[in-house]
């Protein structure tokens, strides 16, 4: 109603067009005429893969103003042919989840709640503890004198939803550090 134009008054359009009963083209608003899906107005579309199960369904991710505005099945994928299950279909909400936390949080021993810290501080603190834990539980030899060269002070769990490259980094760093208690859900 913002830009009312008398000639565009649907009553007149009813008279003008064949849509005398006012149920079709004569009542279309400007906004409706301008309808454009956000899949078209997106700045870019990138091809991706659904992060949930191992079927590996293709996804198309539509981005506008550096924000994900739509995720849908990729019809090009020979695996999924554009289809997604409810979880895959909810991926956009996963990305823009209301409950998502984007701050680094720290809880001191015995503390009752989290405090916010910045990322470099957190990584520095973790690095200190990493080194300390590694030394605390270092084992050079087993009781028969066989070399072990490992630490039992550090454990890790996870990996089936993070990238191969990330698992590679994790395994490489842990192994170089001598940490062996590395597992993922493949065995839980």
């Amino acid at each position: 109603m913002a830009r009312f134009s008398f000639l565009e008054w649907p009553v007149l359009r009813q008279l003008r067009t064949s849509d005398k009963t006012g149920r079709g083209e004569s009542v279309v608003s400007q906004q409706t005429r301008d309808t454009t899906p956000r899949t078209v107005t997106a700045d870019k579309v990138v091809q991706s893969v659904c992060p949930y199960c191992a079927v590996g369904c293709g996804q198309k991710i539509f981005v506008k103003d550096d924000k994900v505005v739509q995720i849908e099945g990729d019809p090009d994928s020979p695996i999924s042919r554009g289809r997604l299950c409810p979880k895959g279909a909810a991926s956009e909400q996963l990305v823009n989840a209301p409950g998502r936390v984007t701050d680094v949080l720290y809880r001191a021993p015995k503390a009752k709640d989290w405090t916010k810290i910045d990322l470099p501080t957190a990584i520095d603190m973790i690095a200190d503890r990493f080194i300390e834990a590694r030394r605390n539980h270092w084992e050079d030899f087993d009781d028969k004198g066989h070399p072990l060269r490992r630490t039992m002070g550090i454990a890790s769990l996870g990996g089936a939803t993070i990238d191969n490259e990330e698992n590679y980094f994790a395994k490489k760093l842990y192994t170089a550090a001598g940490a062996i208690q590395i597992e993922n859900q493949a065995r839980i």
Partner: protein
Amino acid sequence: MANADCIIIQGSNMAECHPVGFQWVSEAKARGARIIHVDPRFTRTTAIADKHVPIRAGSDIVLLGALINRVLTEGRYFDEYVRAYTNAANLISDDYVDTEDLDGLFSGFDPDTNSYENSTWSYQTDEHGAPLKDPTLKDPKSVFQILRHHYSRYTPEMVEENCGIKPADFDYLYESVTENSGRERTTCFAYAVGWTQHSLGAQFIRTASILQLLLGNMGRPGGGIMALRGHATIQGSTDIPTLFNLLPGYLPMPSAGVHDTFDDYVAAVGTPETHKGYWANGRAYATSLLKAWWGDAATKDNDFAFDYLPRINGAHGTYQTAVRMLNDGVDGYFLLGQNPAVGSANGRMQRMAMSHLKWMVVRDFSLIESATWWKDGPEIETGELKTEDIDTEMFFLPAANHTEKAGTFTQTQRLVQWRHKAVNPPGDAQSELDFFYELGQAVREKLKDSDDPRDRPLLDMTWDYPVDEEGEVDAEAVVKEINGYFIGGDRDGEPLDNFNQMTDDGATAGGCWIYAGVYAGGQNMAARRKPRDEQDETAGEWAWAWPANRRILYNRASAAPDGTPWSERKKFVWWDEETGKWTGKDVPDFPIERAPAAKSDQAYGGPAHLDGDDPFIMQADGKGWLFAPSGMIDGPIPTHYEPQESTVANPLYSQQNSPTRMVMRREDNLSAPGAGVPGSEVFPYVFTTYRLTEHHTAGGMSRWLPYLSELQPEMFCEISPELAAEVGLEPYGWATLVSPRAAIEARVLVTKRMTPLTIGGKTVHQIGLPYHWGVGGQGAVVEGDSANDLLGVTMDPNVYIQNSKYVAGTIVPGRRPRGPELVDFVEKYQREAGLSPESGNQQVTVSAEDVAASHHAGQGRSAGGHAHRGGDSAVGVTPGRTLDGGRDGVSDGDGTTASATVDSADDRSGRITIEPTEAAEPTEAAEPTEPAETAVSNRADDGDPSDGDPDHGRHADGSAIAETEVAEAEARARAARDGQADETGRENEEEDD
């Protein structure tokens, strides 16, 4: 799968867990295939199946064994196929004794270690080592006759008695699979965690594979056994593993006392002298990995820094690690998109373990239960933990999601798919890649002046990666390292084209040999996205499959021994006389010019010596294994044992449970006493856990999403109207479920989809429990009690996957107690049942004579068996306290004083770690051919490394070798996957995103 004439979905709720994968089942059904769902529950899969066959959880081997028995008895097996393509005719050692004769034990059982010495399971061989065969299949020592004998008491009556399946349903199933097998038709099996999450998981799969081999359904279109996995890159996370016993590419982690030197290690991985196929180049793969990790510091003189690798000496899996945490043996814990407080079996044990840590890093999208257990977890509510007493430092680091970083996932059919980055991560969120990069840099920076030799591996590690303008690591550079590259020479720095280019002299580096080729020619092959309608249906130009973009396995069996198709209808791959090559609708998975009639005069010598009718080219003998002479920890032929905590006595043998299962005797991991033992009546019902379409594992990626949460908002249990009446439960009211370990509450969904079964004259009620909910996470849209808290930890000895599908328990109306009363409530049940850590954990239940006979049989031939590899256990499984030892669940056993259980566990891990090929083989036979609809690579243009590679001179026929080697590599890898990390995929249900 879409080509199948009959699909048996057993141990899987495919439509619910893999809706998009289920489209192929739908398609098969639309083409007229019969779909049968064998499952304790009537699920959404059943809803569009032709038939539901309700089964008691854990009795699958009885059913499948009875099918095998009847197929053998009535001669409905695919005779020509069985004779040509399986080891049915092979003769087994004279010392072999079957479970039929030892009341449930095979020959070779060692009661001290609760494990088998398996030399009596091996083939009889002639003086050249070639296996002896009886083509008539009449010899009582032939595999065929052993199989008949073994399953002779697996009858329809037994099925009715033990599985609760009506004879008419059994007949229907039998007729369906037999009518839909043979030359003209094929039947396909699909399974998932319903099978793997049992203490007999690997054997369930083997039973199905034996049946499928007998029916001639392996390696043929619309046949096989399909594994269904539940995580985006569960495959990738075993290929490039975050697993204690593996290095990338299924290279084993070196084991203390076994692989003390590089040569020892390489010998175990594979050398030309001891192995055939691709594993013969083990030294090159290992060297390339070491070069990739330690660069210039890895030299020939220091065995390429082999000593930088830490050693394992036992099982260091997540449950063993939790025990170590409880013993204060672990300081720090990283969780990478994982929610063990909800997702792991015996959740309380997990949370208590966390409270013993000094620090913990949780990387996730939201404050999952594993990040907030110290604040509002169930133990805070019960008073078992107090926030102000917990010393654990917690770090929560927000993670970037799949749109905010580039990288690859490897899906269930080994397809490596690149994801492009769409947006930048918000706030402080970052990818694991950046986190580990920065952590590595920080650690190295702090240690840079250290002269401690133990810090050398960290300081010498190659850790320089290009970063973009936002400071993020370029994931493609990592792909390139994984792919491998040349060092020195005129191609210095160029990516490898395939793994045959890897050398053992340090001239190549490569982070994961099976992925070599993913970055061939500097092109990111995983990022290929040629639309499916612009290529053939195999879609070889969509992403990249390892190895060498190979998409399908062993289809030689789709042709008769003479090379002609079994039938016009099931024509797939065949021998073309004119060109003298294998050809067909798919790329033949066989030496391309190896004629059907070709015979080798050698039992060894690699793929060049395969017979023309040895389709299962990854097996040592090219045959499908009906009987597994090696590789399985718990027996060469699948045998029915009751699940841990079963309320039913094993009707077949005195041996109630699997004698080799791994138990954890702990006060915080109590088991129900088991059938017939006083106290078992306290836990009369069977809980079986599962997942729903609307949620994802422990809920970290679904319970925070309103759209998914509203669809399944509350924790519920599914029970039959009969049980509801028996216990007095209101529909949609509350019930409390109690297991020997915990009590949870749930809404009651009374439904006829749950069927009470009559087992041994008694009614057995099964209760279905989805496990997606948890208590305490912050910001979750919905929460509820976690079904996994009910579970105990008892594991499959082959792969260490716990039993989630069978839990004994009871159900009472109303909500559970709150606060400390909950602890008393559970203890009341424990006392009533008289539980102790020994309850239900008796390893052997057959007579002493049978044990002795079994043990004796094994010792007679120990020469050929596996060496016993004990090792000291740093963690292992230690006995817990007795019941009055307090509730903290901390074992005060010293981790290094291993019990018998520990020893056996270590022994097992040693074996499977060291000899993945063997571990793999039996499962290999079981492995499905890839479903027919999966893609095929077009080797002409996929850059197959081995096509006529002139440098690879060890084999006479390069091309043929290539074929076989790739297959064998895959076999090896799958073996590793299936035999060890395995069933893996099978992932589980439990865990979290």
